[in-house]
């Protein structure tokens, strides 16, 4: 089974988000970058499937030259090949343009399964996987918290919980599935894995070489950090002595009668 996994390099966000002077990006001077969490799970899922069925795991990222770091992290987790669709420094690529560029990579291989995160943790567009599937003419299931591939590798069942109900999508391969954190617990890279990742070649393709960029994406003008609610917490007391006051608040809020 040959699997393509699409991953995104995103800022590591810690205590608070601060923006660059032009308010068009997150200031990352004091933080690092990581793989968007849902996508790290997508890589783990792909590696497990390849361990079971044989085949290969190719990771692709659309991002700046530095996204090579995240691709090597995927290689350390067990991916076998990496492709970087390189964008200009500081440029944001919208969901339609991203899907088109990923499509050129996906269509160039014969992948049985294409995995993505359900949404990127930074931009949260919720659409690249679905747009990619339509460009490929393949079925797509999203938000998967479990993937069961049939014994002969010809179909899969992707399931998720929604409003207390389990929804299962049964799709023939080849298909596209977007996954969410919780589908698995990604492994720590092994030492041999890290050494292999260091030596591996990352194929680079300039974004412009992937074909025409579709126009029409939503255009970001600026970012802003929402005002934190200026609440002054009312301290009800210390320890169990605060319980009567706590009960009174629960009654006041209508939680208990």
């Amino acid at each position, binding site marked *: 089974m040959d699997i393509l996994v699409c991953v995104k390099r995103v800022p590591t966000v810690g205590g608070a988000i601060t923006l660059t002077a032009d308010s068009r990006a997150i200031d990352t001077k004091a933080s690092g970058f990581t793989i968007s969490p849902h996508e790290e799970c997508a890589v783990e899922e792909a590696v497990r499937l390849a361990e079971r069925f044989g085949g290969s795991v190719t990771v692709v990222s659309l991002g700046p030259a530095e996204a090579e770091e995240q691709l090597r992290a995927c290689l350390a987790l067990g991916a076998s090949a990496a492709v970087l669709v390189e964008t200009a420094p500081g440029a944001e690529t*919208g969901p339609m343009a991203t899907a088109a560029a990923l499509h050129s990579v996906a269509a160039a291989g014969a992948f049985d399964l294409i995995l993505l995160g359900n949404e990127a943790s930074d931009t*949260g567009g919720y*659409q690249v996987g679905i747009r990619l599937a339509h460009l490929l003419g393949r079925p797509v299931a999203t938000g998967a918290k479990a993937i069961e591939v049939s014994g002969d590798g010809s179909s899969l069942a992707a399931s998720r919980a929604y409003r207390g109900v389990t929804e299962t999508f049964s799709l023939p391969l080849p298909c596209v599935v977007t996954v969410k954190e919780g589908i698995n617990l990604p492994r720590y890279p092994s030492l041999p894995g890290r050494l292999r990742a260091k030596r591996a070649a990352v194929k680079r393709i300039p974004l412009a070489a992937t074909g025409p960029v579709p126009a029409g994406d939503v255009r970001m003008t600026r970012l802003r950090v929402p005002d934190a609610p200026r609440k002054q917490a*009312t301290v009800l007391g210390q320890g169990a002595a605060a319980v009567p006051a706590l009960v009174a608040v629960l009654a006041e809020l209508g939680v208990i009668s």
Partner: protein
Amino acid sequence: MTVWWLVELDGDAVADASLRALTLASGLVADAGGGTRVAAVVFGVPPVADLAAYGVGDVYAVSGVDGYAPQAWARVLAELLGPAASNTAASNTAASHAAPDGAADGRDRSRHAVVAAGTEHGNEVLAHLGAITGLPMAANCVSVSASGPGAGALDLVRQRWAGLLLEEAVLDAPAALLTVATDAVAAAAPGPAPVPVTVHQVTAVVTGADLAVRAVETSGGTGGVSLATARVVVGGGRGVGSAAGFVSLEELAALLGGVVGVSRVVTSEGWRPHSMQVGQTGTKITPDLYLACGISGAIQHFAGCAGARHIIAINTDASAPMMTRADYAVVGDLHEIIPALTDALRGRGR
């Protein structure tokens, strides 16, 4: 102008998240002035009395698609929008029988919109609609307004980082595809009196490939109240200390008619399953009360609980972010406070 409002049902009623979407849809209509309307699109049996109460008199009831099939739903919405709304040159098919007046004439087309809840279903259906029509789609909007008088473009504000960051953006397209954040826009309130409702029957025209992407539903086994819609959530974090420590939180949650939610550390430690996680990569909650016990409050966690109407925090560290951002705080050890609170509540019940 027609603002198509995709209605999600929760049982037989309009889902809370869809009522939040209705607020934004109504705002678009008010912005545009006369000759505009919100038209509800319901797959299945429309909750007519509910829709009348919320003042939505135009209802399109779609038959021919069983259950949840996102690509088929999107195909129907694309038909309702009409060919004028399509960005693809190939879409020159005849206008759908259900297309609203003016949808196909191209003059007013920039003002049409499809608005859905920013739920897994809403985001999924509108992404399919974007892919089918070639239109851009903006997920999890918190506000939208016309860029200027007579302008086709919309100025919008949408959530990034699950709401930790806001993006101001311009959407310039033949029709605006928008989903609405489930935790940042107030739910629409019923009008002063019910309006008369006209139900238009729509028969879905979809392909086999559209129907192939379809959910088979089985009861989740969780039963009872779901985390996303619970009115009371008792949260537990690192301070709970162990898997066994959650028993007292679950007892308290049951007494309050609520459910337990957890922070990310709890699921990485394996104390509770990921399905109980509140936060950016877990579930977003919108309860009346979030009782956060032993949770320090990483910003990714706030992304999941910012929609709570009231927060009470219990923590040994009075300076933890969760304690300073809560409405009420109790300083102390949850292992002492929670059993005492449970006893006090049981005492009241007698």
